[in-house]
């Protein structure tokens, strides 16, 4: 075998969104030789599409807010399935992470007294989201990117990792390819941090970019790590539905946070009819109270338009099913009749621009048509809360590809704070592990060669399968059979289709050269897409209840017994998927008391 380009680092971070950048910055600051490897150009990661804001209980708008309230909101929003230690760390550390961004140059919108402005969002008791109009993700990624550049961190752009390698049971490096040239590259690393985001591209209608193919989930799984909570998929209630080419593009929850309401074809604010018992005590029952709440959160309860995302998404599906949907199969999101045009343009500039340019809709004059879109993967690599360590030594994970933090449903705004808090912690975890490691792990030539052989496989394959068609078929199967409302038989049908698609993917043929060949890249991404799809479907089949981002039409109730278990996935020696029920981390009494303090 010819020598391939090899680099040696203490810590290799895979993925350069919010979590990856934050992890790399921290690892590098602690003195670890750090590389940041990303599939796209630096600064293009999916974090850039986050709109609404970063949840952090700074108490700038409501002094009553604090980490305890944020913790409670997060746990309840996750239907009590989240890891309480992660939720605690997250709520406690988020404010400092936001302040840190400011000291690196971020310019958040301000309050009148010059502090960071905070906006209302679904499931959050108080105005809590630090934001910049509706482009907070861009602000965050640019700030982190510029800080990383300033710190001189080595960045490997448009470089995709295909496999992680191990020396014995611990991580020893990673192998991948340069997208640009198609040349292979190996990284010898003491520790690897996965920060690759989610799995949205397994679904037809999604708000995610092409990169979201479940790479981190799969890399960890193949390396022997555990995945948890894979059945929980967040369908964001408000994606664009029309025209077809933009279906799924996100419409920020900030529209509702800033006064927008959901209405059906009768012009009725239907969310008042979908308040579950779980949230009844904290939700407004009349339109008058809901409208007062925008200005006075202390004496009024939250509008049901801002119930957690799973609740709102299900309500929209029900309205459309009942024949009260909008012309193109969504519902109406109306801010035009509720806020002045100049306010809308100032608070939601990208939404205004997006609808104007892509759908010919002026949101200051007309209602938007919206419907659910696959948005976020709650499940991910099982990690140790304090360090982000996965179950394989030397492997760490942070951000969307890590599991546990959000339980069965993530609150809006908790993602960006998750990236910062656990990105930093994973960076510390990885750096300390790497710097404390005695002998560096060895990268076996044979292992590297087996990965490059695997990457070559699709090339010059004599199969006749088109990778684009395979992905499209997978998206249809996942969306219709393992989508927002699921049933046992349909999930089984999906598993059959996934098995079939795996066979077809092995025969995917690629034309052209290795240089910047998207067909080839997709053929390789199919391996991770199919792996996470199977993980999602298997977990969804097993959990016979409805909870958060997992709704079973054949098991509509939330079962308290299931509330004690996570579903954990790992790879058997024969390559098959092992599914186990593992007990939820028990909530210590002091934290449990915080959740009990209702009202």
């Amino acid at each position, binding site marked *: 075998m010819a020598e391939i380009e090899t680099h040696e680092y203490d810590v290799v971070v895979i993925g350069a969104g919010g979590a990856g950048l934050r992890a790399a910055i921290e690892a590098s600051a602690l003195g670890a030789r750090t590389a940041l490897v990303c599939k796209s150009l630096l600064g293009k990661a999916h974090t850039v599409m986050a709109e609404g804001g970063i949840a952090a209980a700074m108490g700038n708008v409501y002094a009553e807010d604090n980490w305890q309230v944020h913790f409670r909101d997060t746990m309840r929003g996750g239907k009590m399935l989240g890891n309480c230690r992660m939720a605690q760390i997250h709520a406690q550390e988020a404010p400092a992470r936001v302040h840190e961004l400011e000291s690196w140059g971020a310019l958040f919108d301000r309050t009148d007294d010059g502090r960071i402005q905070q906006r209302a969002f679904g499931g959050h008791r108080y105005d809590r989201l630090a934001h910049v109009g509706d482009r907070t993700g861009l602000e965050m990624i640019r700030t982190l990117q510029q800080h990383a550049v300033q710190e001189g961190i080595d960045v490997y*752009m*448009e470089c995709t990792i295909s496999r992680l390698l191990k020396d014995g049971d611990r991580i020893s490096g990673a192998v991948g390819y*340069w997208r*640009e*040239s198609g*040349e292979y590259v190996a990284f010898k690393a003491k520790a690897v941090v996965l920060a690759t985001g989610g799995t949205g591209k397994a679904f037809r209608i999604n708000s995610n970019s092409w990169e979201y193919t479940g790479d981190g989930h799969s890399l960890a799984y193949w390396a022997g790590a555990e995945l948890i909570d894979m059945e929980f998929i967040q369908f964001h209630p408000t994606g664009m539905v029309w025209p077809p080419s933009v279906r799924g593009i996100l419409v920020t929850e900030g529209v509702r946070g800033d006064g927008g309401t959901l209405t059906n074809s009768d012009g009725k604010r239907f969310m008042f009819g979908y308040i579950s018992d779980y949230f009844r005590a904290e939700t407004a029952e009349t339109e008058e109270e809901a409208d007062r709440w925008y200005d006075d959160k202390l004496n009024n309860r939250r509008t049901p338009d801002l119930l957690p995302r799973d609740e709102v998404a299900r309500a929209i599906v029900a309205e459309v099913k009942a024949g009260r949907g909008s012309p193109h199969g969504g519902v109406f999101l109306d801010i035009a009749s509720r806020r002045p045009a100049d306010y809308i343009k100032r608070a939601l500039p990208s939404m205004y621009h997006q609808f104007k340019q892509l759908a010919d809709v002026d949101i200051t004059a007309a209602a938007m048509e919206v419907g659910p879109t696959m948005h976020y993967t709650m499940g991910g690599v099982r990690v140790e809360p304090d360090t982000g360590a996965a179950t394989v030594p030397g492997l760490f994970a942070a951000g969307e590809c890590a599991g546990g933090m959000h339980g069965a449903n993530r609150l809006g705004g908790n993602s960006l704070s998750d990236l910062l808090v656990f990105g930093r912690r994973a960076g510390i975890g990885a750096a300390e592990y790497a710097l404390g490691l005695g002998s560096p792990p060895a990268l076996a030539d044979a292992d590297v060669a087996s990965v490059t052989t695997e990457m070559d496989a699709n090339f010059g394959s004599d199969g006749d399968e088109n990778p684009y068609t395979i992905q499209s078929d997978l998206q249809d199967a996942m969306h219709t059979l393992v989508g927002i409302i699921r049933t046992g038989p349909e999930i089984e049908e999906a598993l059959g289709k996934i098995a079939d698609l795996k066979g077809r993917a092995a025969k995917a043929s690629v034309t052209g050269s290795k240089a910047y060949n998207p067909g080839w890249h997709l053929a390789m991404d199919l391996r991770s897409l199919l792996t996470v799809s199977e993980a999602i479907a298997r977990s969804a089949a097993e959990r016979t209840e409805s909870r958060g981002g997992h709704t079973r039409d054949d098991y509509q109730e939330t079962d308290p017994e299931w509330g004690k278990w996570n579903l954990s996935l790992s790879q058997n020696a024969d390559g098959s998927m092992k599914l186990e029920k593992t007990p939820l981390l028990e909530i210590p009494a002091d934290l449990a008391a915080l959740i009990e303090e209702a009202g």
Partner: protein
Amino acid sequence: MAQVDRAVSPPHRLGFLRTLRTDAWWFEPAAIGIGLSVFLGYLTVSAFLDGWAYEIGPYLTPVFEPKLAGSFDAWYFSPALLILWVPVGFRATCYYYRRAYYRSYLLSPPGCAVGDAGKKYSGESTFPLVMQNLHRFFMYAALVFVVLLWIGAIRSFYNTESIIDGVAVETGWGIGLGSIVLVINATLLMMYSFSCHSFRHLVGGGSSCFSCSAVSRARKRIWDRVSAWNESHRTWAWASLIWIVFTDVYIRLVANGHITDPNTWGGF
């Protein structure tokens, strides 16, 4: 990214006036080029035409403002040339006019994504174009001219001559079409000056803190105003240019008896 040096030739590579644009990109630079030639050409000619009457009664064409004719009658050249360096310099170094003539005259570039002229390009980094940095000094002088033009405009409401072209007219305060034309001219030139980029920098743009003191907060308010005007700097530039030509034509036609100015003084 891999570090490979790549020199390539896609089909739209390099070349003067080469582009794949399919729209009428050439229309704007052509129209602006013709417009500038016509109006600036007229003003150039006008400035030399001190032999052709340029004032009558209370009206003096702005091309010869401030009026130096009395003291410089014996001067070899037109007296306008003693003062014209101010408006000419101001407009020549103006950020808007630079855009206009770089595109229309120097074809640098003729249009966006259209190949520009010239093998070498150094922009405003070398002589003579480095002199564009003097724009603010012309702006200071132009601000003086705003005052002078307003004085001229106000003076146009007060006639001191009792006999004009052999006709007895009233003296004292009054109003004529010419006064209105001159007021509009002063207004447009004032707005052109107040919407200037250098003026915007002067009033507040150079500051990095708007909230720091009462003075800086006041500067912020002025800066906001000037910024709003600045967005229409191009409009002010053209309006004031066209109007000064119109004003000059109008007053000369009146002064030479081709048309009669309607006014309260009962003459010219």
